[in-house]
């Protein structure tokens, strides 16, 4: 099991989908049970990964690698190779958790074509996990595109009144981005052949050759990839598909869409754009361009959220704003910014996923999401109101909850790079508090004005069960984020060292971990962990990212995390 854990995680949902196809479609309860069992099983099989990965977290490169290059389609040099590092590990855990939760949340919401629903949902789950696991560009692209189909169907079949429009818009937008990316991939593939005489899609091989592309070609390629990922994120000018898709999708679809699908864009930027084109990413105008787009997204998303009359649309636009923080952190290109960004992606999955569930619960009871229809809900649904408050706090970044840690780290990382960028991002935090608190006030406080709301039932056991794990994780990240930063330290530091070989405080441990690579310009995270014992040695204490710059009076999670790493075996138990 240890050697094939990733395949097991990847294909458990697919097995469930195949089994479900055999169940007669009239037997709705059996289908629901099987769907939920496999949803939960998908999460359960990913649990062993936590201690196993923890033991390997300081190794550079991909872990748990399965398959070999070229074993799938030898004639074009593509293989079924999967492996994870700290970044993909966290996103995989998020995917399995949210998958189980969303499947559980659909029990009553889906009444028509139940069988298909669960089948497509489980297929979607496999597709998303594959994106985060693939170590082969071609395999990645297959998962990336194949995953669009179940999502398109989920929106199109079980969606709201404008579902057809939203579904096709989602599909076309994302396909538009990914076909350009396909050309980029093919260029890298051919370029690799030109340099080495070998046709391969194997990711570590491409890491070695892609940065050697220079000049205009690199910039064009960077943008070919960038458009693909930016549409998925979605970054500012490409975001218009998101409100439509979110609003029309069924609740569970929105949860997955916001929680996981959007992360594929940011994951792609981290996994592909930065290491493939480090020089372009560091080109001042490119970097500034992306940062400005992120800042626009942060502020514009928040302002638009303020104005929404529909709760789901409000949450959807808030995603634009939150994802703006993530891309800001990525292109701050410092260890703090990047690890904050990944953590913020997890946070956004947790809190926005929960927000969509929250909206879904009201919608299931009243079949409307108009804010004006509600008021004084805390009187009739006290448990629900409490959970909602916690998740709102988490989303707006209140200390002690997860959102704060992520946003703070991103802002800190950005501040150290450029004070103006950070200054422009801060209003986003304030506006987030404004639109969420205002929403909370309008929906939950005051007297119950609308007679239709007087008889609303509070959360059922099943509904509560969907929130509890999210609340726990939200508090966990908020109170004790250290293990998360420890997991992220190695991949993030390697990435920054790849993109910015001159980054102070990183080059040494980076090169020590990778004695193979004397040329820092072509430095890449190696595929296989070197077996030498010194590679397992963690970073030495006091090896902060930018000594003397980090503010000490505020919690600076990465610094402390790294500093305590060697002396904290107690934390190993998680």
């Amino acid at each position: 099991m240890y050697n094939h854990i990733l395949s097991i995680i990847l294909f458990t949902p697919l097995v469930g989908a195949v089994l479900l196809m055999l169940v007669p479609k009239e037997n709705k309860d059996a289908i629901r049970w099987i769907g939920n069992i496999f949803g939960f099983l998908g999460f359960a099989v990913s649990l062993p990964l936590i201690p196993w990965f923890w033991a390997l977290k300081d190794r550079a490169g991909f872990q748990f690698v399965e398959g070999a290059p070229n074993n799938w389609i030898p004639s074009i040099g593509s293989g079924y190779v999967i492996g994870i590092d700290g970044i993909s590990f966290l996103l995989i855990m998020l995917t399995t958790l949210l998958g189980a939760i969303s499947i559980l949340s659909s029990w009553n919401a889906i009444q028509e074509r139940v069988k298909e629903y669960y089948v497509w949902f489980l297929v979607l789950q496999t597709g998303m996990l594959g994106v985060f696991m693939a170590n082969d560009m071609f395999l990645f692209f297959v998962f990336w595109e194949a995953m669009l189909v179940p999502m398109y169907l989920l929106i199109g079949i079980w969606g709201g009144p404008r579902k057809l429009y939203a579904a096709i818009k989602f599909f076309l937008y994302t396909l538009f981005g990914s076909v350009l990316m396909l050309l980029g991939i093919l260029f890298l593939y051919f370029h690799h052949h030109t340099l080495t005489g070998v046709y391969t899609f194997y990711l570590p091989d491409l890491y070695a050759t892609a940065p050697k592309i220079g000049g205009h070609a690199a910039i064009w390629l960077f943008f070919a990839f960038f458009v693909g990922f930016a549409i998925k994120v979605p970054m500012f000018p490409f975001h218009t598909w998101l409100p439509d898709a979110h609003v029309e999708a069924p609740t569970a679809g929105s949860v997955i869409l916001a929680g996981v699908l959007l992360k594929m864009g940011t994951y792609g930027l981290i996994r592909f754009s930065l290491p493939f084109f480090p020089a372009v990413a560091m080109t001042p105008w490119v970097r500034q361009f992306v940062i400005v787009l992120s800042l626009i997204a942060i502020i514009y998303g928040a302002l638009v959220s303020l104005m929404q009359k529909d709760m789901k649309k409000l949450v959807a636009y808030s995603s634009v704003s939150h994802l703006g923080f993530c891309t800001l952190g990525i292109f701050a290109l410092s260890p703090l910014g990047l690890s904050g960004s990944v953590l913020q992606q997890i946070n956004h999955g947790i809190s926005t996923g929960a927000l969509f569930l929250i909206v879904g619960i009201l919608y299931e009871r009243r079949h409307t999401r108009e804010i004006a229809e509600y008021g004084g809900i805390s009187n009739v649904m006290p448990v629900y109101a409490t959970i909602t408050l916690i998740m709102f706090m988490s989303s707006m970044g209140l200390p002690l909850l997860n959102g704060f840690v992520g946003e703070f780290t991103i802002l800190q990382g950005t501040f150290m790079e450029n004070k103006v960028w950070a200054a422009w991002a801060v209003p986003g935090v304030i506006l987030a508090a404004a639109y969420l608190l205002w929403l909370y006030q309008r929906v939950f406080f005051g007297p119950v004005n609308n007679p239709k709301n007087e008889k609303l039932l509070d959360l059922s056991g099943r509904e509560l069960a969907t929130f509890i794990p999210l609340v726990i994780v939200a508090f966990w990240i908020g109170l004790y984020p250290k293990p998360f930063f420890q997991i992220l330290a190695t991949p993030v530091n390697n990435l920054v060292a790849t993109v910015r070989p001159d980054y102070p405080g990183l080059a040494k441990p980076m090169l020590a971990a990778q004695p193979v690579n004397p040329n820092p310009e072509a430095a890449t995270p190696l595929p296989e962990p070197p077996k030498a014992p010194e590679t397992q040695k963690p970073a030495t204490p006091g090896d902060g990212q930018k000594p003397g710059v980090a503010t000490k009076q505020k919690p600076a999670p990465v610094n402390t995390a790294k500093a305590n790493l060697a002396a904290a075996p107690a934390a190993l138990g998680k």
Partner: protein
Amino acid sequence: MTTSLTTFSLSYSSTDYLLALPMLLLTVFALGILMIDLMLPQQWKRVNAITALIGVAFSSVAVVKLHLVYHAAEKQGIAIATFTGFMGSLVVDRFAIYFFYLFLMGAGIAILMSMRYLEIEHESHGEFYALMLLSVVGMMCMAAGYDIVLIFIGLELMAISTYVLVGFLRRDKRSNEAALKYLLLGAFSSGIFAYGLSLFYGLTGSTNLGQIAQKLQEVIATRPNDPVVIFALLTTTTGLLFKIAAVPFHQWAPDAYEGAPTSITGFMSVAVKSAAWAMLLRIFLFGLYPLRSMYVPLLIFVAIATMTGGNLAAITQDNLKRLLAYSSIAHVGYMLLGLIASDGQTNSTGIMAIMIYLLVYTFMNLGAFAVITSLRRRNIIGDTVDDIAGLYFKAPTEAILMLIFLLSLAGIPPLAGFWGKYFIFLALIQTGHYALAAIGVLYSVVGLYYYMRIANSMLMRQPIDAEPVHTRPAMRLALTITAAGTVVIGLFPNFFINVTNWSLGLVQGTQHMAGMLR
């Protein structure tokens, strides 16, 4: 190509007939069907279809036989064997064998699709199947012809059979109109084509493609801008582009596709199209290779126009057959990109892309037409986007299969259709045609829109009629074959990529059709 065919014998020999065996068998069966049909009572007409299938099977065995002979010859140390017969006019090389398989597969599946359809239309006649087999004979001549006379005869045999098949629904006005349009435009284009070929004969004094290439090389060397050469090239190209339905010579296709019996529409869109492509590749890559620098700019223009015209026109169609007709025009545009990228000399990826495109297209497009065929029920013509509405509720299996075919046509991995596009774009990237690649991929996004319109209607709308959709075993077999092809090629393309490479004489690793027959 400067190397020409040197090893043909000037006399007939018995091996010539072995080479022609697949065609001879089909002819025998076609004639046999015509005779048996006279003796069959009305309720036994299905025997004709079965006879035709047996004929296809026999012919396939003959092709396999040829294939084995190849292997035997290659085992004995001949690097890439080619067999020529009938004084060099018929060349059964790997390229031809690949297309033989393709035609037979397309014909076999189309016959399976036709059986019930013809009964519903009350047009269950033996001629239908006989004509199909004869058109396959014509196609084989086009793919294996190395002499413009044989190629032209094959073309006409195929075309005339198809004209009749398109108009086979005598009581249906649309079918009659389609047949007449197709006949007039088809005959016109054949005339232009023949005129171009005759000019080449006049220029070079030979009808053999190899010798034409050799002489053209000399002509070009002495008179680089000879107006006769240019005029001959233009007319020949026009004729060829007519046959593959490239814009601006595509007008016949939507009408013919819409009016023809649905199974024949499917047959035309795959087998007839493959044959036209085989002929086009033979002529452009072999006979007219010396003129490549002249025809490539022309093809670039046509390819862009074809992708634009096909994709944009398909968006507004409400008739499924018309929509798929325009989409197949768009697919021709992508395939032309492959010919633009690759010359078969320095780079062959594009040619290989066209070959694999035709293979996957055979499965996915026939599959889509098979589903549309099954919509033809009592009193319901069933070929509009509205007719397919709510198909999921009436026939979930067919609806899911149609979704697979549509996604494959749109080029979503891991389905077969992706591979055609993949190699086309790879060829463009390899040869540095970045702008064309970008145009191509962007149009494939447009393509998704109209395919998903069908899917939307099928999966997300309520049915407008209550008439159930039943499929007979023959149709189910056709659907199974096409769906299996679409999925299996998509997931495990390695074998099929190797087959395509083999058919072009590409040894793994080398990137051009080095040893292929010229």
